[in-house]
């Protein structure tokens, strides 16, 4: 079988695949930053003493975690234009969807991080006269963020792989670009093997870095 492989089609497709990879990385980074910010807010809402706010956040997180990402992508793509009256286009829609979806997952991680901080620290913060937002932004969140950094990054690696689902709305990511090239040259097998290699190298290097980071943080703590 390997002798039947025709890898000559890869070279002419490289520029094509490169644009796909750039979009994948861009989408991952934006969704990660946006997702962590919204996720932290969601986590704070879930832990807040205001019952309706906590309940709304809990519902949002559970709903997002119960529906396959593929369906969420489709819904956002089909429904957003109906609300705004203006079509967003595949790339922008993908960014909005992933930020909203990943926020649910990041919020679960941040919630665990916040809950891992001893209550006494909050009390201590309040005792020296800090208000809620000051306690959170100067005492609790920096520590929670630091403790959870490896898990946040591991989730980002999953996000990086999940972006391959944007094929459903025709945004051109790494997998999609490779697939199109594979179809144009009618060489899907070679393209899938090639793209599996790219994903593996990137994800493996990232998870290697996460492990090193984990060790570093563990020592400091």
């Amino acid at each position, binding site marked *: 079988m390997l002798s039947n492989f025709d890898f000559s089609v890869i070279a002419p*497709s490289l*520029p094509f695949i490169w644009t796909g990879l750039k979009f994948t990385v861009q989408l991952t980074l934006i969704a990660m930053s946006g997702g962590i910010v919204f996720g932290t807010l969601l986590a704070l809402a879930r832990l807040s003493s205001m019952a309706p706010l906590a309940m709304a956040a809990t519902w949002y997180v559970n709903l997002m975690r119960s529906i396959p990402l593929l369906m969420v992508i489709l819904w956002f*793509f089909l*429904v957003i234009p109906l*609300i705004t009256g*203006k079509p967003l286009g595949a790339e922008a829609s993908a960014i909005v969807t992933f930020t909203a979806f990943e926020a649910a997952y990041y919020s679960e991680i941040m919630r665990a991080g916040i809950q891992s901080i001893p209550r006494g620290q909050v009390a201590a913060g309040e005792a020296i006269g800090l208000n809620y937002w000051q306690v959170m932004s100067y005492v609790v969140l920096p520590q929670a963020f630091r403790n959870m950094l490896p898990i946040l990054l591991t989730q980002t690696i999953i996000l990086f792989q999940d972006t391959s689902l944007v094929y459903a709305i025709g945004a051109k990511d790494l997998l999609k670009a490779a697939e199109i090239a594979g179809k*144009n040259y009618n060489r899907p097998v070679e393209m899938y093997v090639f793209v599996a290699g790219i994903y593996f190298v990137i994800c493996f290097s990232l998870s290697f870095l996460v492990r090193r980071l984990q060790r570093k943080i563990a020592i400091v703590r």
Partner: protein
Amino acid sequence: MNKAITLLLAALFASAPALADTLAKVKDGGSITMGIRESSYPLSYLDDKQQPIGYHIDICNRVVDAVKAKLGMPNLKLAHQPVTSQNRIPLITNGTVDIECGSTTNNAARQNQVAFAVTTFVTNVRMAVKKSSGIKSLAQLGGKPVATTTGTTSVQLMRAHEKGQGVNFKEAYGKDHADSFLLLETDRAVAFVMDDNLLAGLIATSKAPNDYAIVGEVLNVEPIAIMVRKDDPAFKALVDDTIKGMMKSGEIDKLYAKWFMSPIPPKNVSMNFPMSDKLKELIKAPSDAPAEAYNKK
């Protein structure tokens, strides 16, 4: 839960602005969006610079020129939105795409949702096999795995044929045409049932084009057309008139020769796919009748 979502959606749809007037929408927005396919050989696909090219793209570009002239907006922006057979109809109805230039069969069920321009291509649903298998007819497929692509009209045809002829074959599904062809290439299936122009394109670009043949009876004749929004007679008339003009002037024949009879990117292989008699008829007498009109028994 279900009910709540239904109500929510109903409320959203009710408040959505009317999209029926495409020309007004394009004029207000300053841009027109063309729906394109990524691998509908050679009607609509991407070249190695990610640019959409193909027979239908060329026709649509003429339509866009006509829109520019009609609105007096020579600098009208043209956007391309890749579509799939799953989302092309919702995207037309929700306004993301203004004109779909892919390879969509005009049939009665779809006419509930969208409208079609006059037919610009006619395809026959047949099967591709490996020559070495000796298969010449559908009757020889009993008990054997037959490939087709998920969610295409070929699935319905195979199902109907199975019932009518008492031939019982095992269906194997690829998620797109390249995957389905791979099912045939790797012997997971002995035949691949699909539109003959797509089969010809896949065979022409395969590793061993001489190993394959398109054989057997025609399961269906399908008119392929450019798709626009329903209930928008002004825009449909503009599209139809542009295409009819091209048919009259002979420009369509030139485009056909360019995409079906000469080497095309990205591999510079020719499809060698002569124009069918049915399409020749349709160029003389343009029509937007659905597939049902072609296959009356």
